[in-house]
């Protein structure tokens, strides 16, 4: 996936992507977000999640660490927080080629559902997408991403393993003895 460089409009570490998605939607951002996991134990430490926006509506997703695209990439991004976020503005024309790449396309409401877990934001995003008369893939819902996540035993084992280690470390730190 090749993206021309955009103009950096925001850079920070975030744990919750609700604000990022809402800000992009409300400001009608056309551009992209780079999401770098701060959790080096999950996925590829060098991997970056890429999410593009057209007029504030999420358009395509890609993950450079796992080389996944579309809904799968979103699933990879979803488990990788907290993130270092960089938000860039980029004009429509520069994004056109990427936005025409089918396998990377995501339903517009999916990031709000999967990354933010915010049904209201998802609904607002859908409305915005409809207003802009963008193509929507109504038949593709977020479920396939959730099911794909639950089918990914390796990622889930990593999450469990890491949580277990954290719980053990903290038991000592916090003085729990059971």
């Amino acid at each position, binding site marked *: 996936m090749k993206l021309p460089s955009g103009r950096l409009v925001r850079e920070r570490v975030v744990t919750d992507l609700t604000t990022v998605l809402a800000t992009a939607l409300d400001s009608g951002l056309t551009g992209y977000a780079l999401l770098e996991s701060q959790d080096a134990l999950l996925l590829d430490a060098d991997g970056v999640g890429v999410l593009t926006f057209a007029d504030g509506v999420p358009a395509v997703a890609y993950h450079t660490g796992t080389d996944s695209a579309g809904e799968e990439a979103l699933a990879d991004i979803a488990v990788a927080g907290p993130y270092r976020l960089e938000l860039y503005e980029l004009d429509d024309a520069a994004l056109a080629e990427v936005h025409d790449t089918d396998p990377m396309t995501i339903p517009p409401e999916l990031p709000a559902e999967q990354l933010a*877990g915010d049904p209201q934001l998802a609904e607002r995003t859908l409305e915005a997408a409809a207003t802009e008369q963008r193509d929507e893939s109504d038949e593709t819902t977020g479920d396939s991403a959730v099911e794909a996540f639950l089918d990914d035993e390796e990622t889930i084992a990593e999450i469990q393993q890491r949580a277990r280690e954290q719980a053990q470390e903290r038991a000592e730190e916090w003085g729990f003895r059971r």
Partner: protein
Amino acid sequence: MVEAFAVASGKGGTGKTTSTLALGMALADSYDVTIVDADTGMANVLFHAGLSDAETTLHDVLAGKAETREAVYERFGMDVVPCGTSLSGFRDADPDRLRDVVAELAADTDVILLDSAATLGSRAAVLPIVLADRIVVVLQPTIPSLSDGLKVQEYATTYGTGVAGLLFNRVTDDEDIDAIAGKAERYFEGETLATVPESDAARAARRAGEPLLAHAPDSQAAAAYRGAAGRLDVQSGPSEAVAERFQRAVVPDEL
């Protein structure tokens, strides 16, 4: 005889407090139920149970300024112990006293439901999970919620706390919840207790300051919670054992 459950989810917004009170009310048909707002940093129970003007709260008890019984309110067929909302109340509260409070309440009830914090980030937030016999994991069918639910389960089992079951909440029609729940169960120790539909009734109940089962007893969501309560096999242990375990759970003199 008593069993203590922590109602937990790693992520906020899953409807944990709504679920705690709904499960509590449904269980109250068969058991003496006590609800404790163990999310001392972000009190919620009081707003759901019409107790926003409660004079004495768990904060006062945890600060050593009141007896436990002064913070117990009989509401909707349950004993409810709300937390206060003031920052100073939170600052003065010693979370470790929670175990004494729960031990004291355990002597006089069948089921304790601890509404716990939507984070695993601090000792106070994890304490209810340590104290409980088992957790009920409240999930939304989204990747962040499932992922956080898995983390909560690992914390619980690491600290010797069991998993009583899963509650899928705020489920919308376009989700194939049976497929998702079926796949999720492979990773969780407990079975799915219920899938609760996304519901305007839950929001309306919260605005009215009533538990969902009191505000909209005929709603689909209320029926789902009653089903969950029916599926929850309460395994009451002797109250003394619970009290003793609470005493052992934490090392207070190092704190």
